[in-house]
């Protein structure tokens, strides 16, 4: 699968977040949650791309299907960015805590 340029920019905050480690035994780590969010973005981007290509080639002219898929991709992207920002923010706070 070709590298999605949108995800490349999105994952710029990842390495810092991975250092946070596990939240609690049995619970998902910050990194896991971010992984899931990014994968969801990738799936939705690719789904939207397929729909755009189908409309453009005239094979499956489902216009509202395409628009909905585009909006879903947009929303999941923005949500993932918001999650990443919150996580990085939290990491920064923890880093700067005086012990």
């Amino acid at each position: 699968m070709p590298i999605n340029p949108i995800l490349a920019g999105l994952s710029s905050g990842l390495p810092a977040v991975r250092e946070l480690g596990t939240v609690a035994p049995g619970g998902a780590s910050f990194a896991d949650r971010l992984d899931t969010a990014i994968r969801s973005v990738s799936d939705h981007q690719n789904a939207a791309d397929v729909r755009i290509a189908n409309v453009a080639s005239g094979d499956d002219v489902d216009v509202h299907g395409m628009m909905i898929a585009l909006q879903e991709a947009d929303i999941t992207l923005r949500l993932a960015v918001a999650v990443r920002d919150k996580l990085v923010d939290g990491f920064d706070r923890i880093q700067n805590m005086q012990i």
Partner: protein
Amino acid sequence: MSAFLFDRLHNGLGRVLDLRQAQHGITASNIAHASTPGYRARYIPFDQILARAVGKGSQLELSRTDRRHVLSPGADPENPEVVEIDPPPWAADQNSVDPEREAVRMTENSLMYDAVSTGLSRRIAMLRYAASDGRQA
């Protein structure tokens, strides 16, 4: 860097818009020549050429199991084929323009132009959002 950012689909969509605009120009010419003796109406057949433009053609090539599944050379997005329509037997002036056919073709074509340009536009907007690291709306 730009080849990485603006992928095959991005360029393909631009090419589809080129082809749709070319079709519009040819339809405009047909409609303008509704009264020109001997004028043959023409159009670009879109069955295969658009699929190839967005990169779906390669999948078709892979799945060809029958020798008859041939991609016609006229389906090259860079060099589209233009088909002429023969005049009907009752056309005294040998003009083959059918105003209703042209009007329907133009409506469908402009509708599809809108759909593709909108898809391309929203996709670009997402790229821009990601490229500005989520800062720009």
